[in-house]
């Protein structure tokens, strides 16, 4: 076999700390290497052309590129090799950038390591075989998990693109966090006025099936052919007959039930529709508050319901949806700020969260749009906003900037002045981060036009005294301690991944970080893809973002799904397992361990043998390490190839010694 080795400088990224010329020189002495050279940028057009020319001129059978991670340019170079007329799988990569030049400063050690990695890649490639894809059909339906603004945008874009959309929302209405907002920055336009019509569009779109009060239970399958088990949670109201008239809400005697939509600052009835514009506009019973469920005596809602929709015996219902792609748009939750003992940790009623304040500002909120402090319902005159509560704070494990708190605080300061003209707002901040279109102008307006007093410094303590909240902090610009007597304290609480996002990520087989945010395929170039084919991300599920960015990402995810579905057939990855019938004894242990059900029993001349269904096999190789006979081998990751890499490395050491 004639192998070519191409060692990339990557400008100074690699060449700075690895002697690439020496690596190429060393490669020439490796077995089966017929050609080796260093190249400035292997991935550039001339770099790729150089590889193609060398393959053609020297009649190479395979190529090793020593450059960056295969997760970055693996497919780029496979296409290059294919353009030169070789099978794209006659290619291996040695990662001498992320794993060598960027993590070590010692040029001698780095060069030695790079030579080893090339030697290993060559040894592996020497046993590569050409592989050929198979095509399989795709189910052109898409599931969107999460009905916030990002999910709504993705659903509408997909549906307008002609796809059948299944939207799964865990609460009883879509709208997400945006539906709870009063106004939006930097235009101060009414949130529900712009979101409401889009919610109605979702309800009325012929291509969208909406499952509210539903959660994803399990996900099976692979890109193009996912089966998703959806649990429709019992609402104790038959939504087919409920008309959303609200008669039950009027008569429900349990009027002081917890109200999650109003962030628990207001109360609602045990049977309720979260807000007037809810989609679907259907009632549901909160089991924990309902008298019927608690004592068995009541049943008033069932008596007054004109359509006899109440069903106390309703059970969760399981449905299976078959889709080809999934968009996760599960959004965020506010961090639990009760770890902040210095802010009262939830002990003081007049210290509230930004989202609670938002509900208070909203005309459809529990106070009818009047700002009232929770303790005595009086109108506050001095309001202190504290920024970065659960953002940029390592001490509570939230080192990142949530990004939108500076903006919503400025908005709330402006709205406060509109609501109570003789009020005073103080904002304690670390830095003002307002990097969007018209954002900085907006925060300046809050200060200059609306007179919000911005104090740069942290608050050390909040405590009650004589009916006021004393906010003690430092003004780092003035270099002095400050104390403000506040009527109300509003905490700008940072965002984290929505509750349950980690569990969902595990079901979807995508990565997530320790804050519950899903990981994108590449932070710059694949911001909506995940590393699992056919699963995309939108909105705050990927990381905190404001409404414009969430909407943009929702559309981007929809575009990705539409481009995936623009083909009728997908090409399978041929790096799948293959059974050596002579060795297989038909014990079927491989089939037992296969997570995808990709191995089935077959009969060959009266003997039971394993058979791999190539389009279902995902190429994990669990079967290969299970098979005692070594009969089932993952193509291009065979036992022999991995051990060849090990031997190449270990033998190189013997030479040195």
């Amino acid at each position, binding site marked *: 076999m004639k192998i070519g080795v191409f060692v990339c400088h990557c400008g100074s990224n690699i060449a700075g700390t690895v002697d690439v010329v020496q690596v190429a020189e060393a490669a020439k002495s490796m077995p089966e290497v017929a050609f080796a050279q260093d190249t400035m940028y292997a991935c550039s057009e001339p770099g790729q052309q150089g590889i193609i020319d060398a393959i053609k001129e020297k009649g190479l059978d395979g190529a090793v590129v020593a450059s960056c*991670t*295969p*997760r*970055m340019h693996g497919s780029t170079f496979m296409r290059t090799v294919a353009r030169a007329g070789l099978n794209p799988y006659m290619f291996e990569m040695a*990662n001498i*950038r*992320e*794993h*060598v030049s*960027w*993590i*070590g*400063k*010692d040029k001698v*050690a*780095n060069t*030695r*390591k790079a030579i*080893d*990695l090339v030697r*290993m890649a060559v040894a592996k490639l020497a046993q590569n075989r050409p592989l050929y894809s198979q095509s399989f059909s795709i189910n052109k339906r898409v599931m969107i998990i999460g009905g916030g603004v990002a999910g709504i945008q993705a659903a509408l874009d997909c549906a307008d693109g002609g796809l059948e959309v299944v939207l799964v929302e865990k609460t009883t209405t879509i709208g997400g966090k945006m539906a709870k907002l009063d106004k939006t920055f930097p235009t101060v336009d009414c949130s529900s006025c712009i979101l409401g019509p889009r919610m109605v569009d979702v309800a009325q779109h012929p291509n969208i099936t909406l499952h509210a009060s539903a959660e994803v239970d399990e996900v099976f399958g692979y890109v193009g052919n996912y089966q998703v088990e959806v649990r429709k949670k019992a609402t104790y109201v038959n939504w087919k007959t409920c008309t959303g008239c609200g008669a039950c809400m009027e008569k429900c005697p349990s009027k002081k039930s917890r109200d999650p939509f109003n962030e628990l600052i207001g109360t609602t009835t045990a049977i309720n529709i979260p807000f007037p514009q809810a989609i679907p506009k259907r009632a549901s019973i909160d089991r924990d508050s309902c008298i019927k469920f608690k004592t068995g005596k009541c049943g008033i809602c069932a008596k007054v319901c004109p359509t006899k929709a109440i069903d106390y015996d309703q059970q969760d219902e399981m449905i299976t949806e078959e889709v080809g792609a999934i968009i996760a748009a599960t959004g965020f939750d506010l961090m639990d700020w009760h770890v902040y003992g210095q802010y009262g940790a939830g002990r003081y009623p007049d210290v509230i969260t930004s989202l609670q304040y938002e509900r208070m500002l909203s005309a459809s909120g529990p106070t009818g749009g009047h700002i009232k402090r929770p303790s005595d319902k009086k109108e506050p005159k001095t309001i202190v906003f504290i920024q970065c509560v659960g953002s940029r704070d390592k001490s509570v494990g939230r080192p990142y900037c949530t990004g939108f708190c500076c903006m919503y605080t400025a908005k709330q300061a402006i709205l406060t002045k509109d609501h109570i003209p003789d009020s005073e707002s103080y904002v304690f901040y670390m830095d003002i981060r307002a990097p969007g279109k018209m954002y900085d102008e907006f925060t300046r307006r809050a200060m200059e036009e609306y007179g919000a007093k911005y104090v740069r410094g942290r608050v050390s303590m909040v405590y009650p005294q004589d009916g006021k909240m004393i906010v003690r902090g430092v003004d780092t610009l003035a270099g002095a301690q400050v104390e403000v007597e506040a009527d109300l304290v509003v905490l700008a609480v940072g965002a984290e991944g929505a509750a349950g996002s980690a569990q969902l*990520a*595990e079901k979807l*087989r995508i*990565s*997530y*970080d*320790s804050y519950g945010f899903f*990981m994108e395929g590449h932070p710059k170039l694949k911001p909506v893809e995940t*590393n*699992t084919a056919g699963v995309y991300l939108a909105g705050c599920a990927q990381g905190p973002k404001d409404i414009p960015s969430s909407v943009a990402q929702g559309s981007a995810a929809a575009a990705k799904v539409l481009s995936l579905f623009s083909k009728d057939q997908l090409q399978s990855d041929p*790096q799948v397992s293959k059974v050596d019938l002579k060795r297989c004894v038909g014990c079927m242990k491989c089939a037992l*361990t296969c*997570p*995808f059900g990709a191995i089935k029993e077959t009969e060959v001349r009266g003997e039971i043998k394993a058979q791999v269904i190539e389009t279902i096999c*995902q*190429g*994990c*190789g*669990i079967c*290969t*390490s*299970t098979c005692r006979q070594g009969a089932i081998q*993952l193509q291009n*990751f065979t*036992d022999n190839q*991995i*051990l060849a*890499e*090990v*031997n190449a*490395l*270990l033998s190189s*050491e*013997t030479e040195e010694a």
Partner: protein
Amino acid sequence: MDKELRIVGFLCNWCSYGGADTAGVGRFVQPTDLRIIRMPCSGRIDPLFVLKTLIGGADGVLVSGCHPRDCHYAEGNYYARRRLEVLKRFLPVIGIDPGRFEYTWVSASEGQRWQHVVTTFTNQIHALGPVQRIGRQSLATACSLGTVLEPLA
């Protein structure tokens, strides 16, 4: 640090290999002893790979995959965990210091954790020192199961 030792890392492509990439992108400086072999999944790692690597003269072997419950292939790392735990307990039986082998979980976002894992493991191997080289013949004898079982019989 003293002379470089031979440490082999078997890493799952989706999490730990990505975590090592993340560490590289973040320029988290690490010892240079480790050579990484990319695997599709930690479940692909046959314990025999580890054994053959150690018997072949490596000073240490590190395996890393996705955190349990967070496997790209749903359950590969559970198989890995079972097999590798058994392997770790088995190593002293054939006369290999179990400290020369570790398995761990690093996600693709945990660049800093990867730096920590590599540094700690490399230091651990350096503390153990280079593995004792023995001739091929005596090695084969020492590793054959017969030698181990004889005293028991």
